[in-house]
Each structure stands twice: as C-alpha cells, then as structure tokens.
C-alpha cells in the first residue's frame, strides 16, 4: 500500500538514527531545570514538590510518558492541565473507560463520507461522461479498474480520516500535552493500543502507512490503581506516585487555590485534614475535598474553626456516614480522655 504522503510530511517511512535506537528526539527542552519547572507550575497555581517537578523535567528531557498513580483527588489530572498551561500547549484528553477501542482512541474512517464519495462517483459515472459501463467487455475493464483504484486511494486518504485523541496528539504541529485519564479502566488488551504511541510516538494505519509525530507530545497517564497495569506499559513510562501532600504543601495549596482564605485558617484546615488522615477511615479526604472545605468555610465567613463548626461542615470532607461519625467522635473526644 503506497502511503499518500503529501500532507505536511507527517506521513512517511522516515527512519532517523535516534528513532532506530528507541530514543525519540525530545526536541528543544521546555524547562531548563527542576527549579524552573516548580516555579512555573507554581505560577499557574500548581504547587509541585521536588518529586513531581523532577519527574516532569525528566519526562521532557527523556521524551517519555509519565504514569501518575495515587489516590483519587490528589491532583493527577490537574498536573497535566497545569503543565499544558505552563508550556502553552494544547491539552488533548483521552478519557478511558471499559470498552474503549481503537476507533475511539486512535482513528476511524469516516464511513458516511466514504459512502457519499462512492455515491457521488457513481452519479458522475452514470451521467453522460460514459467512460465505460460495467457490462462492456472490450477495453472498458481497464477503465473500471483504474477508476476503482483511484476511488480506493481517494476514499482512504486523510480527508476521510477521523482523528481521535491519540492520533490527533501525534499529528498536531503545535506542542501538545496528551492526557490519558484513568488508564486503569480499560481492559488489559486495550492497553496494547497505547504502546505504539507511547514508545515510538507513531501510529500505524494499514491503509496509509505510519504516521510519525512531528513533535514529541508530553504524555501523562493517570491511574487510580484499581488494577495492576501491564508490565509492558509500566516499562515505557516514568512512574510518579502522588500521595496526599505534606502539611506545609497542603496549606500552601489551600492558600494558592482558595481566594479569601487567611493564613491562619489555611493552617488550621491543613492540620485538621492531616489529623483526619491518621484515623482509620473508609475514604480519606482528598486534596480537592480539602479545597472544597476551605471554600465552604470562607463562604460561611469562618475565621477560625472550632469543634462545632468542624462537625457541621465535615460532610464536605467525608463521604461515608461511618467515617463522619468516627471523625466527629475522634476530633471532639480524643483530647479529653487522655488529658
């Protein structure tokens, strides 16, 4: 199959040395140092710690995807969004779900348009031009096959290709951040779809040939760890585990993301949340829930939290009845029985 490589050089069989060795050329660095990563992320309101900033920096330098794992609501998706914002790239998002397949993730032929094209061809053929009707035996066969080949080449060209997120990220001429969200939701078999894109930054389409990336997108995969991802996928990625932040970082996050919060209140919030996380709960309060809580308190005009207010608003933080009861009990009583 001959690749129709007329469109902006994206489609070809080009093999450069780096690609052969398995090291895609990362292109010009987006960040000069780890500190710069952290500062620029902070500027858009994402407070990264050393680990996060380091991995982002490496991902850019090594041109490798980042697999971000951790409990829900610790800013996995937000990280990708913030990086996109910082680098001024377009964010392309692929939300994974069970049953995701090639036609939703990679590409699809625009079947309706192809049909239309064929119909149109037939109309042209029937109308006057008369290059030869199928019934004719002599000489006409040639015309039919050639027009058939034309047609086939025509309907399997990029015009009829519907790009889905993965292909789109590869083809985009501008810098792109690709976010593959909740990759643990797809079946083990579907993971294989990602592999070619993640390691070689290319997509093979049987009818067209191989499409290589014009620029290496920064790829983030997030996982809530509901299942073990395959070794093949993990091997291709840098791994970043996002846990609940430290007290200081959580306080700074609250300060950065919630307008109108005082430093004292943020400190108190962070400390209460940390105490809650030491309890044995069904679901620990996440960072996003901490932020919700902070916003709630600001809206209510609370200056400093006492036990009553904490109890009244805890339902923002905790989503299980048993958790709520336990937290209320612990926070109010724990001090007394020891004192």
């Amino acid at each position: 199959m001959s690749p129709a490589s007329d469109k902006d050089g994206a489609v070809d069989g080009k093999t450069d040395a780096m690609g052969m060795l398995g090291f895609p050329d990362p292109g010009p660095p987006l960040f000069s140092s780890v500190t710069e990563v952290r500062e620029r992320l902070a500027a858009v309101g994402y407070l990264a710690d050393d680990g996060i900033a380091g991995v982002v920096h490496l991902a850019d330098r090594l041109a490798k995807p980042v697999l971000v794992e951790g409990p829900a609501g610790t800013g996995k998706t937000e990280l990708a969004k913030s990086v996109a914002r910082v680098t001024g790239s377009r964010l392309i998002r692929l939300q994974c779900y069970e049953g995701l397949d090639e036609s939703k993730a990679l590409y699809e032929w625009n079947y309706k348009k192809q049909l239309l094209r064929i119909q149109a061809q037939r109309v042209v053929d029937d109308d006057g031009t008369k290059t030869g009707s199928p019934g004719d035996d002599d000489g006409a066969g040639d015309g039919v096959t050639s027009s058939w080949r034309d047609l086939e080449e025509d309907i399997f060209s990029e015009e009829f290709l519907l790009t889905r997120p993965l292909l789109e990220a590869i083809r985009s001429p501008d810098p792109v951040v690709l976010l593959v969200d909740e990759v643990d939701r797809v079946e083990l078999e579907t993971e294989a779809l990602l592999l070619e894109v993640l390691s070689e930054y290319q997509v093979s389409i049987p009818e067209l040939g191989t499409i290589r990336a014009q620029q290496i997108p920064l790829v983030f995969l997030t996982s809530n760890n509901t299942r073990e991802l395959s070794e093949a996928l993990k091997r291709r990625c840098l791994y970043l585990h996002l846990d609940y932040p430290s007290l200081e970082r959580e306080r700074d996050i609250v300060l950065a993301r919630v307008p109108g919060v005082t430093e004292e209140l943020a400190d108190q919030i962070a400390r209460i949340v940390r105490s809650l996380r030491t309890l044995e709960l069904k679901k620990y309060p996440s960072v996003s829930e901490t932020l919700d809580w902070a916003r709630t308190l600001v809206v209510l005009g609370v200056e400093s939290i006492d036990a009553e207010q904490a109890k009244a608003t805890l339902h923002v933080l905790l989503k299980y009845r048993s958790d709520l009861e336990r937290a209320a009990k612990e926070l109010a009583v724990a001090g007394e029985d020891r004192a």
Partner: protein
Amino acid sequence: MLDVLTGFVGELRAAGLPVSLTESIDAAEAVHHIPLEDRDALKYALAATLVKSSAHWKAFETAFEVYFSMRGPQYEFGDDDSSTGDLDSENDNETENRGRGEGRGQGSGGGEGLSPEELAEMLFRALLSANDAQVAALARQAVSRFAGMEPGRPVGGTYYLYRTLRNLDLDRVLERLMETARASAPEGQLTPLEERLARDEFKSRLDRLRRELEDEIRRRLVADRGTEALARSLRKPLPEEIDFMHATRDELASLRRAIHPLTRKLAVRLARKRRHGRKGPLDFRSTMRHSLSTGGVPVDPKFRYPRPAKPEIIVIADISGSVASFARFTLHLVHAISSQFSKVRSFVFIDGIDEVTRFFENVDDVADAVHRINTEADVVWVDGHSDYGHALSVFWERWGEEITPRSSVLLLGDARNNYHASQAWVISEIRHRARHVYWLNPEPRAYWGTGDSILGEYAVHCDDVFECRNLRQLEHFVTELA
C-alpha cells in the same frame, strides 16, 4: 557511576523489585539530565525510572539510603570540591545550631560537652519550635551518645535505634510538649479539637526525629560495614510478601491498609472475569435443532449460556493465638469481597465453635466486627487450646445439614491440634456434600505435619491445601476460587 548504578539495580532486584533492563537503561539515561550533586533529584530520577509501584517505594528508599549515603559525595562526579563542600556546610549547620542552642558546645566538640539532660532539653526545645535543622543535628548527637555503637558488631540497626529511643524517652517528651502547649493557650486550657491537633502535630515532629535517628544510624552502619553487607541485612520483604505469622505491628498496619485496595482490585478482576467468561459448553440439542434449516448440517454450533458461578462460601477459621492474625486477615478479605459471592458464612473456633456471620451483617467497619468476634464469640469449650477434632464434630452436628453442593468450604488454620483426636471423617463428610473443600495453612510447607500438626490427616480429604503466608498467596487463592 555506572558501577554504582548497576550495583544499585542488583540490590533492588535482590529485594524483589522487578527491574527490567530497559528500566535500568532509562535510569542511566535519566541520570544524565539531572544535576548529580542534588541528592534528592537523583533519588526522584531513579525512583521514576526504576520503581513502578507505590508498594515498592519503601524498599527502594532503604536501598537508596544505603547506596547513596556516605559514599555519595565521592561517587557523585568524583568531585572533591562538592564533597568537602557538603561536609563543611554540615559542620556549619551544626555549629550554628549549637550556637542557637543557648551558646553551648561551641566549636566542633561533637556534643561531648553536653550532659544527657542538656541534650534532652535542647531536643525538647527544638521540637517545640519545629526547628528541623536543629532536630537533625541533635539526632546525630543523640545517636553518638546513646546508641553505643561498636564497630564490627553484628547487630541490626533496630537494636541501636531501640537503645537511643529508650534514652530519649519520646513518650515523656510528647507529654511535656503537650503540657507546654496547654500552658501557652490563652485560657490555659485547650479545646478538645485543639488538643487533638497539637498532639498530632507533635507526633509528626517526633516521627521526623525518629526517622532522623534511623538515617543517622544507617549512615554509621554503612561506614562501618560497607554497602553490600548492610543492604543485605536491611532488606525487608515487600508488603505483599510479609509473612502473616511474623509480621510486626507496623507491618500489620500496613497490611491492613493494603488489604483495602486489594479487595477492590480483586472485585474488579472477578467481575471482569465473569463478564468475559468463557462460553458455555456446546449445546447439542440446540445445535441439532438449528441444523434443520441447513438440511441437517450443523453449520452454526450453539452453546449453552455460561451460568455465572456464584459460589456460597463457608469459612471455618481457627482463631487461637498461634494463627489469629492470619485468620483475621482472611476474614477481612473474604468479607470485603462478599459482594462477589451470593452468601458468605463464617465460623470461628478454638476448641468450641461459633457462627459469626451476624457480626459482619450491616457493619461498615470490618475491623470492628473482627474485634467483636474476638471478644463475644463463644469459642472456648474446655481450656482454650485449639482442638480441631471437637470443633469440627460440633460443626458437623449443628450446621452440617446446611452445606449444599454450591458451597465452598474454606478451612483456615495450622492444624496444630495439641494431640487431640483429629476427627478427620468430618472433613470427608463435608466434602461429600460441598462443592469444594480447601484448606489454607499460614505455616511454611516444610513445617506441615511436624510436631502436633496433623494436616496430613485432613489434607487427604480436602480438594486442595494451600500454603498461604502472605498477601500474594492469599490474593492468588481468592482469584482461583472465584
């Protein structure tokens, strides 16, 4: 650098982490892109490329601390400047801190001039004001004073840690910190909430101190014994390989935390397995009937619909002292995934036996239920030493009728029967009625049948006997079961 790296990777593999060749190549590649004098950056770079599971983080951290601690400075770029620079800045820190600590111990006396009381006092103050640098410096001194480390002595770091902690008496320090906090409160009294928060705050500071002490001890041990030897002695099992029977309290806690995601994973996997379940067997009658339309040629084979297996589970667990923690975990796990089974009934026994299914009904908190089982269930018949024979025969008498061909019976225990009669016929009767009978034994296979273990007598009547000593084996078994 490459030598260190390959040695490090080798150590990770020895500790049980699956590090592939590409991953170590990535690590080498990554090291190019970071400033090597930055130890944290190096750590994160290696972690990102080599460790692909959060459960393995701890093992990685230990290995990293050992491999890149003392010899760090001379290996990182072999640059003399940076190493001396490092040491200098450390000394600076120390003297500066000591200067702040009320001007005592000036110069580089290494804290010899401090009496234990003074040291404790300074530590207390540093903790109170959350002065991390000073806490670290004091931790170093505490180790050199209290741990009594002797070169070449083949004891583990925990021993030194214990000695240091005993001398520092952190519980009392915590109480003192709390008292100070109370005294400094406006009304001389903290509200319960504030009290709680303050306590958590101080606890986390003390934890940091404890970590500091551990690091310091490890640093010294590395200097004393060399990297490889120490790495070997510090190697700890990964969470999924911790032995239930010999887990420490910390490990038990981490196991409990691990069990929750594990159950979720299992549930997802089981659901998936069922949904994509293999097709049922060939339905001959249906195939023949449909073949009539093609003149008797069976063109289109028909299959029976797979019937989702919803096994009913009966758990009979030994909760006597010797295997209690194991039984507890299994009860946890079985009940956490009980939504996958149409019915789960649990029985516990020591020498008497009691049904405990009721404790798990409408309970959110499995830990609570397990606690109630331990206190309320009527499991002691004579003396509270395991008697499998009696427990099993009572079980057969009272509940034997309720075993159906759909039930799978799980027996948990080490079959150490204190030389009572085995009554193995009960197992064989159960097997006649039930779908499967499995025995899970938390003891290593080599110990089976030794001493008063009579597993052999029971095993002949079971469908299978599994060694089930850690989470990985347990997980494996549950997947097999469903």
